[in-house]
């Protein structure tokens, strides 16, 4: 049975179609979920896609975290199911305190739209199982607020707990500890600034993003298999 992926659409999201296409190419079934809904459909994976939810007014992700769907997204994560926030979705997850830290304006105050290289520093998470440890993935970034920060004790705790899953090879935005993507303590929630959905087709220059989505689908298949 195909994994079911719910892609949350906020007013201002703009990467939901790319996410749908990328997951469907990997034989998943996708469904858009409007931010104003109270409940999620029966899904294995929830995606918070990139964009400018609620115009990013006040702060990136600050208003989106109060969208009605976020209560259900929280419960989905608490149930141990997979949740991924990409770019603006990562910012929303930090604001919602589903992930630690916060995203600041890029060092250098430039909007960055270019390819980046990410090193997989933690293998064996549900998001990196298909990659080798130390493998470098080529995935584009497209953001102004990608400069991740957390206080010292939080960062230490996250390092010790293997939560810094993806680091930039060449830090583009000043992000603390070269962080490109982090997981929560339990390991079922990933937030990352780069856009794996834009790197799932060789025509676009890279298929490395499919390693991340594919890992998630493998994880769901293993769980479903275990349940049967």
């Amino acid at each position, binding site marked *: 049975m195909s994994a079911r992926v719910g892609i949350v659409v906020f007013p201002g999201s703009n990467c939901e179609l790319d996410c749908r296409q990328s997951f469907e190419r990997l034989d998943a079934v996708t469904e858009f979920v409007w931010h104003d809904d109270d409940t999620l459909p029966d899904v294995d994976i929830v995606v918070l896609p990139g964009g400018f939810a609620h115009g990013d007014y006040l702060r990136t992700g600050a208003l989106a975290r109060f969208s009605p769907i976020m209560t259900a997204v929280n419960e989905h994560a608490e149930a141990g199911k997979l949740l991924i926030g990409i770019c603006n979705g990562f910012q929303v997850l930090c604001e919602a305190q589903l992930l630690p830290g916060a995203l600041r*304006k890029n060092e250098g*105050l430039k909007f960055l739209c270019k390819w980046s290289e990410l090193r997989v520093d933690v293998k064996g998470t549900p998001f990196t199982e298909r990659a080798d440890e130390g493998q470098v993935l080529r995935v584009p970034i497209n953001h102004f607020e990608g400069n991740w920060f957390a206080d010292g004790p939080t960062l230490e705790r996250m390092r010790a707990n293997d939560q810094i899953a993806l680091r930039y090879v060449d830090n583009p935005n000043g992000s603390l500890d070269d962080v490109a993507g982090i997981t929560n303590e339990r390991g079922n929630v990933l937030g990352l600034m780069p856009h794996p959905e834009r790197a799932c087709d060789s025509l676009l220059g890279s298929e490395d993003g499919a390693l991340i989505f594919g890992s998630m689908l493998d994880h769901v298949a293993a769980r479903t298999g275990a349940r049967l």
Partner: protein
Amino acid sequence: MFFRAQVHVKLKSGIADPQGQTIERALPALGYEGVSGVRVGKVIEFELQADGEEAARSRTIEMCERLLANTVIESYEVFVTDEPAEVPS
């Protein structure tokens, strides 16, 4: 009773403020030497109804904690008065 609240939000001290740094570098070019410690923040102001000034203040602080500031990276200051709002011309 109506109160006026003003909230100042800025990056916590110790967190690099690239906007402040850029302004600080620009000022000497205009002849303003000796300026340091430039920090850029935002001001959010509104009127609110509350039973008293303390209630208005504590409600505003609650808003800061939940929405107006991200306390991971930002600090805030709250100013509450019962002076009538200026009428915009």
